[in-house]
């Protein structure tokens, strides 16, 4: 799909769609399976959004359930718990943007400066590994280490130093979950940046070094500009996902810090929609979130284009 669109934008519209179809048919054939999967698993289920405008009864099915118009949305907008969840989501998203987003970039730069391939591979494997742990496992490890009965606090206790409440403190919850995300995902996040770094022409560094540019100047004038397109792309995607901060991570820790702090939009849909059998309400919350996300990603992409970057696609 993207190929077609960028072609249309990139070339003057001289060729008829017939000719373009003939020219691109092998490419189109290759993308077809992916498109079919997308349609079956992403577009067809959109039909279920109808339940957000109903009093959905699983037994009666979508066709027979009573229509409720915008009633579910009225309920949603009048629900203080929903606004609390939205506020938490945006706050956590913001904290993660500031504290998490730069970490993989910094890690990639650090790794890139290590010359020994063996040491690089070793560190890369070490930081990748946590990505493959489930959240249940990741949080269990945190609990075992930092929890009220974990290694750290038992050590403090045995030495008669006051204990440190890390895992159940609502005030520092945002920092806790962000550090968990960094521990688990930062290593995985560097892959795309390392690839971009590898694409930078090394001749540029040599030339700059010959001209007397130091380490920082090379970083500032060669490395970062080379990464800029990728950084902006990742930023646009991140903003589009601003309302998706994770599900399992909060589901598991919701009881630890209380729902006031840990409720995000996804857990809200789960607890107040699915878990209580109020499916239509959950669907309405999910739809609301999707619409806002769409607007966000559209806006962020516009902004990227305005700054002359590619964003999600070349304009």
């Amino acid at each position, binding site marked *: 799909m993207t190929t077609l669109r960028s072609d249309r934008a990139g070339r003057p519209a001289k060729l008829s769609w017939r000719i373009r179809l003939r020219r691109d048919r092998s490419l189109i054939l290759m993308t077809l399976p992916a498109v079919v999967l997308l349609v079956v698993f992403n577009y067809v289920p959109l039909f279920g959004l109808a339940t957000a405008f109903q009093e959905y009864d699983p037994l009666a099915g979508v066709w027979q359930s009573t229509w409720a118009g915008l009633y579910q949305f009225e309920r949603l907008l009048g629900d203080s718990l929903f606004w609390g969840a939205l506020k938490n989501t945006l706050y956590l998203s913001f904290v993660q943007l500031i504290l998490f987003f730069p970490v993989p970039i910094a890690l990639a730069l650090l790794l890139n400066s290590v010359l020994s391939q063996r040491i690089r591979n070793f560190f890369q494997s070490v930081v990748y590994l946590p990505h493959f742990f489930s959240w249940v496992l990741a949080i269990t490890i945190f609990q075992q280490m930092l*929890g009220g009965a974990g290694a750290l*606090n038992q050590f403090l206790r045995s030495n008669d130093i006051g204990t440190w409440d890390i895992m*159940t403190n609502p005030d520092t919850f945002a920092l806790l979950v962000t550090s968990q995300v960094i521990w688990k995902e930062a290593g995985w996040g560097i892959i795309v940046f390392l690839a971009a770094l590898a694409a930078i022409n090394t001749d540029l560094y040599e030339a700059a070094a010959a001209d007397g540019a130091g380490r920082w100047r090379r970083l500032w004038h060669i490395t970062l500009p080379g990464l800029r397109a990728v950084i902006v792309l990742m930023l646009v995607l991140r903003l589009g996902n601003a309302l998706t901060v994770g599900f399992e991570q909060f*589901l598991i820790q919701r009881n630890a810090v*209380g729902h006031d702090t840990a409720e995000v939009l996804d857990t809200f849909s789960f607890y107040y929609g699915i878990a209580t059998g109020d499916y239509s309400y959950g669907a309405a919350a999910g739809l609301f979130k999707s619409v806002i996300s769409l607007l966000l990603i559209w806006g962020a992409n516009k902004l990227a284009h305005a700054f002359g970057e590619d964003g999600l696609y070349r304009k």
Partner: protein
Amino acid sequence: MGNELNRRSFLNAAVSAAGLVAMGPLLSACGGGGPQRAGVNSESGLKAVLPAYVPNTSIKPDIPSVAGGPDVLTDPGFLGYPANRPATVSGVPGKGGRYSAVTPLWGTIPPADNSFYQAMNKALGVTLDMKPADGNNYNTIIPTMTAAKKLPDWINLPGWWNPAFNTAGLVGNQLADLTPYLSGDNIKKYPNLAAIPSAAWRAGAWGDKLYGIPSFATGCGVAGAIMYRRDILDAKGITADQVKSADDLMNLGKELTDAKGGVWAFDDVYRYFYTAFGAPLKWKVDNGKLIHLFETQEFLDAADWHRKLAVAGYIHPDALAGDNAGGNTRFYSGKTLISGGGLGVWNLADLQSGQAANPNFRRGAFNFFAADGKSAPRVDLNPATNIVSYLNANLKPEQIEELLSVANYLAAPFGSAEYTMVNFGVEGTHFTMKDGVPTPTEAGQKEVQAKTYPFLASAPAAINNPNGDIVTKDLAAWQAANVKAMAKPVFWSMNISMPSAQATAEAAQPVEDTLKDVIHGKKSIQDLKDSVANWKSSGGGDRLIQWTNDNVLQKHGTGQ
């Protein structure tokens, strides 16, 4: 509240299959939303249809049942395993039909068409295609079948998930009405089914008609109790009868907690203790007025007591962090010594798990007592079962009769030849007799011990733990000591089905969430009061109370 507990348990993976034999089935008091619902059961309507009760006395228990109030009876206890195992069914019950069956299984799904299934098909005279499904996801698997109107011929629908399955809406149109086959004396055609107490049939009755076949019926099901590490407390000279009030329990917290040593006295106990403060299970009727649990002072008192327990530092930090799944591990390893829980956990598997961590492991449970230490102890009786199976409405009458004959075989009493076949398989292939008790072989572990057939029909609960008689003796003694305290709560086993708005209000998620924060010491009682006030005014609480009063209490009474 029982409902809430269960809804959560699928997340916490806390349901233990082994525990189901003696599990106190939890109250399920609401149905899902929508217009077409079978009504509430009424006392007079039910009396006319409930099956006759003809107990089977052919196998004498070592520890006989003890009766309490009406419909209250402890489970019989059997030590070892009966050496003489009489047959209760002559010939094969089936006539060669082929049927599909779906049951929940908390454990590893056995291979399809295995040697045990084949042996069972031969013994039953039908081909039953057993399709056990993961118990932890059962409530999400079944609604797709019901929505597509593609239920199997025979299916188990656990009562605590009635709202998820919309059982009230399924009966009559997708699930067969068994009233003509089983009501009153009709059931005597199936003597093993007739040996299931009448009270258990209420769990599968909807709108004064019989639909469900009950499994694991018990006359002493309660939500749970406060259990403790008897080996450790005994060694400290602390016995159950010394603990007679909430203050005694709090003092135990101080005495037993050794945070430096990594030992905390308590895991969560609130759910199994709040009624000790005089709070109702969910509803109470005061001078004819219907009152919800959340409206009572006793509810606040119970939450406050548990909050103090948490603030004092007597509860394990991981429990306060909401890690319920690790509760058993903490208990076995001695990091917590007192923990609330369903009695289903008190069995042989529990003893073996505990002994793996500590050879002296022994579980005990405190007797029920009133929080003030003065009032008479009282605990709410659960419905006689929550494990109920249903037949497909598309079956022809002769097919229903064939399956009821199969159910009669599956419900053969404890220790009979049929019971041994259903629960242990074929001697030599699936089990061998060691020291007088059936011991599963490797094939038996894989194919038989993953329990499937008993979820279609089974005999009333009996306590039996081959090679673990101490558990049988302890549990039977505890039941006998507490049977007098058990009494029916308001709306006992009435299978109320309510519109979805009321069901949502009854789930009261915001109040439950706040309550959890309060009992873990993170919020104040005032927060809980505010949450309740909010629930009443804008969360549908007042409407729920009004609806329940108009449609249940005024029309059908309290069911007590």
